[in-house]
């Protein structure tokens, strides 16, 4: 009985957020454009030397995707908090952590997933070896999910803070992202050198499995701290 209700609430939440994203679909193009433009800056800054670009391609794409996500992340929960729908969410009889997890999922679908789809193009601009593409996309998949989950906690925490630019989020989130970036770039480096690249990916996977459960719970706790003032 209560399980079907929870399922109903979850699908409602999913539909609600996806509809909202669809209504402002023009905004969805912004992170994509951002990533494209920043990527094109690298050949201008470093010179069009194919070898130089190739060597840093994986890392550059990774960092650009992370930064593009970060810009989007700064809006997560903000509108919900301003128009009172977050309060309604917290007062509904459904477990808050599950609802927040769905919100994070929609955020990921609308901001990170397009970037992953775009990543072959970004990698191509940087002359990344095509054989590394699957590895790049796989590590991006895990890394972006992890960063979304971590970022959601910080956004929940800073929901009523007066500092609304992305700078605070960057300062607090990026240090936490260091292991994620290391592991995903480690995957790429290993793949490039012909070493076993599954190991760093497994680390990311382990972190993701834990984060999938723990992050929504911490996010709910952080939201209570964030709103309690």
């Amino acid at each position, binding site marked *: 009985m209560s399980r079907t209700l929870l399922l109903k609430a979850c699908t409602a939440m999913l539909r609600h957020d996806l*509809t909202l994203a669809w209504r*402002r679909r023009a905004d969805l193009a912004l992170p994509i454009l951002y990533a494209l433009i920043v990527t094109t800056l690298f050949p201008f800054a470093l010179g069009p030397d194919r070898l130089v670009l190739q060597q840093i391609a994986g890392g550059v794409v990774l960092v650009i995707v992370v930064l593009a996500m970060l810009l989007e992340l700064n809006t997560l929960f903000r509108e919900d908090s301003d128009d009172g729908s977050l309060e309604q969410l*917290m*007062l509904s009889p459904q477990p808050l952590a599950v609802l927040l997890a769905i919100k994070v999922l929609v955020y990921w679908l609308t901001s990170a997933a397009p970037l992953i789809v775009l990543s072959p193009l970004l990698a191509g601009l940087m002359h990344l070896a095509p054989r590394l593409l699957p590895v790049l996309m796989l590590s991006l998949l895990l890394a972006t999910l992890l960063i979304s989950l971590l970022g959601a906690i910080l956004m929940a925490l800073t929901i009523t803070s007066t500092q609304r630019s992305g700078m605070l989020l960057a300062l607090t989130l990026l240090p936490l992202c260091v292991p994620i970036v290391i592991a995903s770039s480690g995957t790429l480096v290993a793949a490039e050198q012909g070493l076993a690249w599954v190991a760093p990916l497994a680390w990311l996977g382990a972190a993701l499995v834990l984060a999938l459960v723990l992050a929504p719970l911490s996010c709910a706790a952080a939201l209570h701290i964030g709103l309690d*003032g």
Partner: protein
Amino acid sequence: MEPMILTHCAAPLLEARALCFKRQDEPVFAPLSFRLDSGDMILLEGANGSGKTTLMRLLTGLLQASSGEVLWRGRPLHRDRSPGDMLFIGHHLGLKARLTPRENLRTSVDLYGAARTNIDAALGYLGLDAVSDEPVYRLSAGQKKRSALARLLLIPATLWLLDEPFVHLDGSGVELMNHLLARHTARHGAVLLSSHDQRVFHTAGIKRMRMDI
């Protein structure tokens, strides 16, 4: 604050015991104790900044009390888990500007696990037929308020916590609201509401609670 004199012996629906909330170490209001039973309606009165909204948020569990406690059906209110038969409509209406009233209501109804079939009737009752498929940002303030209040018709809740429900409503809206309140208390529901404007308010059997320190 005098505790309410009540005839019921069983655990009240909602009870506040020496409830106190401090913001920046300053108490927002004097410690409050009161109880609310089914069929009761309490009107919170007080000047701006007297803590009416804060009290409401405390009673919903959105805020945590600095001292004292809130009991819901005799048990301490759990902050992480809303009881589900309590409905709160605050200053921020919880409507998405880019969605239509119908879509907004559908989400609310699904979140509470209520029936979706009554949405049309509720929208009609509140006079929102014409705008039910317009995005909310095109609606007037009064129409937005009515859309939010439609939740009262759709979600079966025992306790209504309404922060300034009459603001932005026109004459017929006030009439509607008064009618809804009377009907809810007659059906053993309970209401706690705040309002500046007491002229709009004419339900019999209302208890008043002053919030001034």
